[in-house]
């Protein structure tokens, strides 16, 4: 089924935000917003949930912590304990102070890289992928709101157009997607 999309272009982030507020209060569903920088406060209006990447970073960090601990315990305590200058490695706990720097560094390394990879993956921003912004100026100074007609079948196209234009959209574009 062919899908009809309206791209409403705005010249200012605040105008787009107040327009989004008005449209949503009337029951319009906004599918997407493209902007050249983060518009603070737009997410709750158009129903974008907060990302859980922070939680993922914590879990990756825990993984790093665990790996570092297990690895150093195995290497320094079990597999090849050393006795340098009459100072044996002893148990893991006795030697733990010397392990703190590497444990910390490895935790940070896993948390940061794990989160960065997840971020790129979830965003579908990976080397070689094509861009999907509707207009090249959405990375410069244009703010575009995407409405899908199938999600807004309470309204006619004309009603939507009218609402967008009165709320400050400077330009409307239509697109059919198969």
């Amino acid at each position, binding site marked *: 089924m062919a899908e009809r999309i309206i791209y409403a272009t705005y010249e200012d982030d*605040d105008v787009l935000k107040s327009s989004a507020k008005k449209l949503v209060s009337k029951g319009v569903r906004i599918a997407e*917003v*493209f902007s*050249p*920088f*983060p*518009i*603070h*406060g*737009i*997410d709750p209006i158009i129903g*974008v949930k*907060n*990302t859980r*990447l*922070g939680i993922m*970073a914590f879990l990756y*960090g825990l993984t790093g912590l665990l790996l570092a601990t297990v*690895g*150093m315990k195995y*290497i*320094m305590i079990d*597999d*090849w304990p*050393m006795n340098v200058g009459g100072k044996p490695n002893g148990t893991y706990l006795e*030697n733990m102070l*010397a*392990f703190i*720097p*590497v444990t*910390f*560094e*490895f935790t*940070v*390394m896993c*948390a*940061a*890289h794990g*989160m*960065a990879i997840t*971020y*790129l993956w*979830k*965003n*579908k*921003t*990976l*080397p*070689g*992928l*094509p*861009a*999907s*912004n509707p207009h*090249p*100026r*959405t*990375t*410069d*100074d244009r703010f575009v709101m995407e409405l899908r007609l199938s999600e807004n079948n309470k309204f006619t196209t004309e009603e939507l157009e009218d609402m967008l234009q009165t709320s400050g959209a400077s330009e409307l574009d239509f697109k059919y997607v198969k």
Partner: protein
Amino acid sequence: MHKEAAIREPLILGHKTYHDITVDVCKPIEDKAPRGWYVLFTIALIIAIYGVGCIMYLLGTGIGVWGINKTIGWAWDITNFVWWVGIGHAGTLISAVLLLFRQKWRMAINRSAEAMTIFAVFMAGTFPLIHMGRLWLGYWTMPIPNQFGSLWVNFNSPLLWDVFAISTYLSVSLVFWYIGLIPDFATLRDRVKRPIPKKMYSILSFGWSGRAKNWNRFEIVSLVLAGLSTPLVFSVHSIVSFDFATSVIPGWHTTIFPPYFVAGAVFSGFAMVQTLMLVIRKAFRLEAYIHTRHIEYMNIVIMVTGSIVGTAYITELFISWYSGVEYEAYAFLNRATGPYWWAYWSMMTCNVISPQLMWIKPLRRSLYFTFFISIVVNIGMWFERYVIIVTSIHRDYLPAAWSMHYPSHMDIGVYIGTIGIFFVFYLLFARFFPVLPIAELKTILKSSGESYKNAPDHHEHESNHSSHH
């Protein structure tokens, strides 16, 4: 929503729009490079090639070609390593710590400071690697199962902690920097006309489209990476200082080292940022974004960290006497009055006296003075490392082994060479990458831009502006 105290100086001068920001940052990339760029690049490239040649000669012959000897096993190599790591501390401090503190002025300098960080840490990493003499065995510092029996690396050694600290710092800084660059590469991708650059920026931008959810994730990733990088900045130079502090050499065996090294690193890093930014803002006509206020903020950081460093020098000197340990006392007396007195007093002059001049407002707001002091600080910080390393070991417990260090041609060649390589990378960055964070700057335009600030209503516009100027 976009309010900020009226008495704060605007961070973006002039009457800029979002589009102006894009144009101002992209123009130096889209235009032909000025002749000055080619001149600088050629000079840097010649020095870099010379440096690579010296490194090849060093690797082919052995590290004996340096001026080191049996008493002084560490000299310029580790001095340069610590110097470069120190310089590499400003970028992540600016982008991470200042992000956590919501300091908006960071946005004018974070991109190029982070680039500088990455290249500086890269140069730093070169020194321990070539100091191994057998570069190709560098992977032995990794804890990998191997064919030599159960031979592992020693996790009790600060030198190994350094391997982890530097590699984590380098890779996390790189990722942090690149994640910020992706949206700006997308801006360039959507602007440039010529097919090859378009393809290049298209690949570099990873298909970024600026959807609301992408920006939502972007902000959290930046925040969490900043949170992770903040302790990382402090840990890296603390661990570098452990290389010395955990030893039993008088002059190195000092508990004050970690905070003292971190302050020194930030001090030298900001000085290098000043040196580079003062040139870039002029060459790329970015005076509206990096202006006197930004330079002043950085000078205040230099003043504060410089005072911490100065306090540390004096504390160290006092404790060496107060401890009652004669070896410790001698190490410091020898530094100040022995054969290396000139190095010690260069360090003291450059690092203790010069930052104190920043208390004077006209001086810290003077661009020429700032440029001069930034060079002085970088020289001083190199001497600091040289003094700590060489003067502590050149006279050890056995007077028969006392020695002096004279830099060889290779010492100088490799050091100058890394400066050349650094500038080759930095100039390439400045030519092809957006030197200011385009997307981030747009977020502060309405709160800190001159044309929006203090003009909430049109009828108040005139009175506010006249009182401001």
